[in-house]
């Protein structure tokens, strides 16, 4: 007799003898039957249950209901219009946090934003995202958000604060006092209009922009060179030779997502491309970008100007132009670099991350000499992401202290935490009569102001942005405001007496200001609707002033150049990492648990020190030291760190960020200094003092050498061009010996596979957060990371090669390899992990009893075990382990209902985003078509700003992934043990001079 088992409750009542095709939408059993499975339905038996297991991975409801009762179930009595339960809607929006800009799509399920995806329609970020962008959805559900307006710390109503603020504003206006709006860089034209409207209403108002990561130096240098303070638009995709001085342009400098996209476009060797750019990086600390460079040169931050000057000098010498008086010699050899640069005139790009105006003037002179303006640096398109000059902020603080400021409205900045002279700011604040803050999160500054007027989270708000000249984008709410918050712009307008809501204001601004720029658009409504749908609008307009390089005071700089004061002095660099950034995201557990791309440490900041200096000072890893008398931090010995340079991350040591931000690391902002009006992100001649005790730093990787194993294979461009198999020669040998005692596996429909181009992966970690968001990966907290129990389904292995003082660094994203001969599947006693007929290695969480045998037997160690009840889904009560407060009702709203939340004692791992595969198969089926290559994109591939990850059907020989697999560079990790992984890696190629 043929048994057929029901796969979902509906099927019990529906037809169970269905033969071939059912097009009845909404039948859940239907999801299970992919196109290739159709023929097996006729003979379906218990195998169906396995498919149902596959489905339970995609069905949180069924799975969790097995273990515990559903606590609350509220049906839609009146179904909201346009909402199909179980189907996600996507809304275009824009993310900007003072570091990254990103055009995004917000995935909304049942009214909840649960995931951020890159928007491929934006020609700026082109579908790329970053870790912070990915994590921003969790910020929406932050426990530390302001929930109501506050008056002197007490909860109150909007009417009350409005009344009181207007009263105060009016009295200031009456006495012709001064109000200052202190904000971050405003890239929103409409917001600027609202501010302008406010300034109109209160004539004594000033607007000061304050960037935590300042580009003052560039702005001021360009003001000198071009007569206008702007940041130009850089084109890494057009540069064949990139020389960067301490500019972490793939991590934090100006517009990292955009730059990563551009940079990688020019470095891919797939699709028949045979050339790639060369990237030379000068820096003291090991940065994300530096670790990706073809050549990395270690210099102290204080030497940077000298090296640049010598480079300019050398270039001029070769060019035969005027050479100024002799300058101190460069600490590193730049002669060959100069000639290389000259060979790449108009195709090179020299940048510096320094905030020193003089240094930027040198950079300008070099780029001018190389003819880069107009090609790799566009002066007619300005990058608007940094507009603040530090002098203005410093001046404001002095004015406040002098009692010249009567009202201060703080918007989107947290100077009490991140301003280097925060004490002075606080003092000044006390002398201001009206203090208003408009933050999203409860933060340090909120405690010092009279009125807190909480702003929407960006996912709740309308907004717009002009990222670069002519590149507009829109933001729209993906959810109604969760709390009693109000758009900051609306607050400003309200205080001027304008009661329009910001949505209306934005639309009318666009109708009058932006719509006219659109060509071929007749009706505003149509224009608006399409642009809102797309999220972006690119008008093609250009700047019309400040295009010409007119002034070159670089000779003065050269003449005044001095030898570095003290070559033996130890210097210290301050950087922002890819996770918490400037500290704004410190309360985001996903980001706190994100391992640094270089050190693999998380949950803390620490002082990186070179191995040589550590030995000299007799300091061990994790020893506590104090720098310049500040609170002690642990030391982390960092290969590749410049001998006399220390580095430490900013953005830690939050005091009022909530859990988990508070008390994580130490605040290093107070160490920043101001020189010539600009903030300097390094200090010279620091004093290290060893403090009693050690401090454990949580690291997800503790062994840094490949031990001679061919795990990450790499080669040089030269060798690659000669032999495409270079670096991967061993594969031929391995393949020749691949003998199996098993029947060859056949996957008749799909055979899912993934290819990872190691040449593209920068290690930015966007995929790690995307995966956590998509798959409800728990956050385990610092202590468990120290115990090596982090849960990430995808990790980026990082190894050092060569001399520990000057190592090469290679990376490799590793997730479940979905081996067709998976050692893990064999050993599970209860058949909880099995192989699907599409080549997926699947986990049935319900069936798992937690022997961890699969984990032991996985050569890649990609399986993760729920050591505690991290999610609150255990059947025992009171044993939850949630140090990062990820299981509060609020934060749980971010959970993806398509993915089961795992309970204590269960193994979990990468599923190749099986829920996405099933969703797309279903979609194709309802549309009665075959799946196309590229339809299914797992979360990691979707998030990647470098397009390093390709996913698809290996049975389709024309799919992109098949082509990658056929590439000579392709290899499989540990292929020699015949696991037959479905993940391939393409050899990393460095364009290095040997």
């Amino acid at each position, binding site marked *: 007799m043929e048994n057929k088992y029901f796969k979902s409750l509906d099927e019990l009542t529906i037809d169970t003898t269905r033969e071939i095709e059912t097009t009845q939408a909404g039948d859940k059993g239907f999801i299970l039957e992919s196109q290739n499975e159709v023929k097996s339905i006729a003979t379906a038996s218990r195998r169906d249950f396995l498919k149902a297991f596959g489905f339970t991975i995609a069905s949180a409801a069924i799975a969790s209901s097995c273990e515990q009762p559903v606590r609350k179930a509220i049906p839609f009595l009146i179904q909201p219009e346009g909402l199909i339960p179980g189907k996600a809607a996507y809304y275009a929006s824009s993310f900007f946090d003072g570091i990254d800009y990103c055009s995004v799509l917000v995935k909304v399920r049942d009214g909840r934003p649960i995931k951020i995806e890159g928007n491929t329609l934006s020609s700026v970020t082109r579908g790329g995202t970053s870790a912070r962008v990915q994590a921003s959805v969790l910020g929406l559900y932050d426990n530390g958000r302001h929930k109501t307006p506050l008056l002197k710390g007490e909860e109150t109503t909007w009417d009350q604060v409005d009344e009181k603020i207007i009263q105060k504003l009016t009295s200031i206006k009456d006495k012709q006092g001064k109000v200052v709006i202190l904000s971050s860089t405003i890239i929103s034209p409409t917001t600027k209009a609202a501010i302008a409207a406010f300034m109109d209403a209160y004539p004594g108002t000033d607007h000061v922009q304050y960037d935590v990561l300042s580009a003052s130096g560039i702005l001021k240098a360009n003001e000198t060179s071009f007569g206008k303070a702007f940041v130009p638009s850089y084109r890494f995709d057009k540069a064949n030779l990139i020389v960067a001085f301490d500019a972490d342009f793939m991590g934090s400098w100006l517009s990292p997502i955009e730059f990563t996209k551009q940079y990688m476009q020019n470095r891919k060797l797939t699709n028949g491309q045979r050339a790639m750019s060369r990237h030379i990086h000068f820096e003291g600390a090991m940065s994300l970008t530096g670790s990706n460079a073809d050549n990395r040169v270690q210099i102290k931050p204080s030497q940077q100007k000298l090296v640049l000057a010598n480079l300019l000098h050398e270039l001029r010498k070769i060019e035969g132009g005027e050479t100024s008086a002799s300058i101190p010699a460069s600490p590193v050899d730049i002669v060959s670099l100069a000639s290389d640069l000259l060979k790449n005139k108009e195709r090179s790009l020299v940048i510096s991350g320094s905030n020193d105006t003089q240094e930027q003037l040198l950079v300008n002179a070099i780029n001018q000499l190389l003819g880069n303006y107009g090609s790799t640096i566009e002066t007619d398109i300005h990058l608007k992401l940094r507009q603040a000059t530090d002098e203005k902020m410093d001046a404001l603080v002095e004015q406040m202290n002098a009692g010249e400021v009567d009202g201060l409205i703080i918007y989107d900045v947290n100077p009490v935490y991140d301003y280097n002279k925060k004490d002075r700011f606080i003092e000044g604040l006390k002398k201001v009569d009206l203090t208003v803050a408009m933050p999203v999160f409860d933060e340090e500054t909120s405690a010092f102001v009279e009125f807190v007027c909480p702003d929407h989270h960006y996912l709740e708000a309308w907004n717009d942005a002009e990222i670069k000249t002519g590149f507009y984008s829109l933001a729209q709410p993906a959810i109604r405001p969760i709390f009693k918050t109000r758009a900051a712009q609306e607050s400003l307008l309200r205080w001027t007496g304008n009661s329009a809501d910001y949505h209306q204001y934005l639309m009318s601004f666009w109708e009058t200001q932006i719509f006219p720029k659109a060509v071929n658009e007749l009706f505003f409504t149509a224009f608006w609707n399409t642009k809102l749908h797309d999220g972006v609008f690119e008008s093609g307009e250009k700047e019309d002033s400040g295009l010409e390089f007119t002034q070159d005071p670089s000779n003065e700089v050269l003449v005044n150049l001095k030898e570095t004061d003290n070559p033996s002095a130890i210097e210290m660099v301050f950087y922002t990492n890819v996770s918490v950034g400037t500290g704004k995201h410190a309360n985001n557990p996903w980001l706190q648990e994100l391992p640094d791309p270089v050190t693999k440490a998380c949950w803390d900041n620490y002082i990186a020190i070179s191995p040589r200096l550590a030995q000299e000072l007799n300091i061990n890893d994790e020893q506590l030291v104090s720098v310049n008398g500040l609170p002690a931090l642990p030391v982390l010995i960092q290969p590749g760190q410049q001998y006399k340079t220390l580095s430490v991350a900013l953005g830690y040591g939050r005091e009022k960020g909530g859990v988990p931000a508070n008390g994580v690391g130490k605040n290093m902002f107070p160490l920043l200094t101001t020189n010539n009006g600009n903030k300097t992100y390094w200090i010279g001649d620091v004093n290290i003092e060893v403090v009693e005790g050690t401090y454990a730093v949580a690291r997800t990787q503790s062994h840094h050498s490949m*031990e001679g194993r061919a795990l990450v294979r790499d080669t040089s461009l030269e060798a690659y061009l000669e032999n495409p198999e270079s670096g991967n020669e061993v594969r031929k040998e391995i393949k020749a010996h691949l003998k199996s005692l098993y029947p060859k596996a056949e996957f008749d429909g799909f055979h899912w596979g993934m290819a990872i181009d190691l040449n593209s992966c920068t290690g930015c970690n966007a995929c790690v957060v995307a995966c956590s968001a998509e798959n409800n990966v728990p956050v385990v907290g610092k202590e468990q990371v120290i115990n090596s129990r982090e849960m990430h389904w995808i990790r980026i292995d990082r190894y050092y090669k060569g001399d520990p003082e000057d190592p090469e660094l290679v990376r490799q994203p590793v997730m479940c390899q979905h081996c067709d001969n998976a050692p893990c599947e064999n050993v599970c006693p209860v058949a909880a992990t099995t192989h699907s007929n599409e080549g997926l290695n699947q986990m049935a969480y319900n069936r798992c009893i937690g022997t961890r045998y699969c984990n032991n037997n996985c050569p890649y160690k990609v399986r993760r075990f729920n050591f505690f009840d991290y999610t609150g889904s255990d059947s025992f009560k009171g044993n939850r382990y949630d140090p990062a407060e990820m299981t509060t009702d609020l934060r749980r709203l971010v959970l993806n209902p398509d993915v089961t939340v795992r309970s204590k004692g269960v193994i979990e791992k990468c599923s190749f985003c099986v829920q996405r595969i099933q969703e797309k198969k279903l979609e194709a089926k309802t549309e009665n078509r075959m799946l196309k290559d590229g339809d299914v994109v797992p979360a990691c591939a979707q998030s990647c700003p470098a397009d390093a990850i390709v996913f698809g059907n290996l049975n389709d020989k024309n799919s992109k992934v098949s082509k990658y697999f056929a590439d000579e560079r392709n290899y499989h990790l540990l292929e020699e043990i015949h696991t037959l992984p479905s993940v391939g890696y393409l050899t990393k190629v460095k364009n290095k001079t040997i």
Partner: protein
Amino acid sequence: MYVSPIREPLIRGAKNYSQVTKDILAPMAGTPSKYWYMGITLAGAAALFGAWATFMTVYYGIGTWGLNKTVGWGWGITNFVWWVGIGHAGTFISAILLLFRQKWRTSINRSAEAMTLIAIACAGFFPLIHMGRLLLGFFIFPYPNTRALWVNFNSPLLWDVFAISTYFLVSLIFWYVGLIPDIGTVRDKAKTKIRKAIYGFLSFGWTGSAKHWSRHETVSLILAGLAAPLVLSVHTIVSFDFATSVIPGWHTTIFPPYFVSGAVFSGFAMVLTLLIVARKALNLEEYITINHIESMNKVIIVTGSIVGIAYITEFFMAWYSGVEYEQYAFMNRAFGPYAWAYWIMMTCNVITPQLFWFKKIRTSLVATFIISIFVNIGMWFERFVIVVTSLHRDYLPSSWTMYKPTIVEVGLYVGTIGLFFTLFLIFIRVFPVIAIAEVKSVLKSSGDNKINAHHE
């Protein structure tokens, strides 16, 4: 049966049958001694510590242990294999020595079998407690269910379930079948009514009939024939837990016989540890003589040497294989962060038992006792070395970690030791520790007075 006069007697003191009965039943009579109470208090306290650790593990999760993403098995499985190994001596003595007609087994097989059963119970505890979801542990049985799910017959852990439970059950019936005539003796010597009733019930109505004896012997022999390969199979399957994997240091073909040998090695060591104390405490020196100890020590030399050869073979093959992962795994064992464990293992398992080549040492109770303890320690470390040092550094250096046990894991281990001694102490009070009938059957041929025995 003729026994050459140059052989040493197995039972000292000119005993008659009645004396044998009296001697062996003596420990069960009267109230327990002060030492017995002290022992059971100590053992019970240790077991309570284990109960606390069990609660912690079940309630809070495996996170209370020191395991991590790379080292998925630690002390738990180390203890499991250690206990299973110890549980091999009893059946080995009873079955294999019976098949090889080694008469000296008669004095020690009863207590060794009891020890086996208790050790298997202790061992079986670990695979259970180390499940992430203990309450769903029943999934492991292939029972018919409405979802029509079955288990994975490819999994060595599943084989373990069958092997361990079969072994426990067969050992239990083997032990009990052997015990039935002796329970009859206890019953017939019982003074109180209750005792008589209880032992009468347990004796299954044993009368000592010649027919029963005849069948009893057949059953014992066939059970021995079945138990002998069973003993091999159990530790073989335990070794499959490791050897079927692809982890360097785990995957090696020599594991099955080498584990079996190691198991017998450790089991004999534990039997020696227990019996050297028990023979003194229970006044059984005339039954468990220096000869017995010496015979067991010889088994220790043989199995210890096999284990030693296996160690060296593995090490040599790791080099000879030319496989970098294999080579690293073994270099890491000997010189890596857990090298101390490796050298403890080498010292205790390979070097110390070789001292038994000296007759003086293998006939010295003190030396035997000390060396048996060394072997117990060494064999624990062998499993630790195999489990932990293979896992903590396997294929991808990115995932290499260190493992450190927690107090909860220590509690579980100490707890099973407590349980072991508690049950053993109870055993010596309720059942005869020496197989009375079997000793009587060899008394004539191998007793002290055998020279007087006339035999044509």
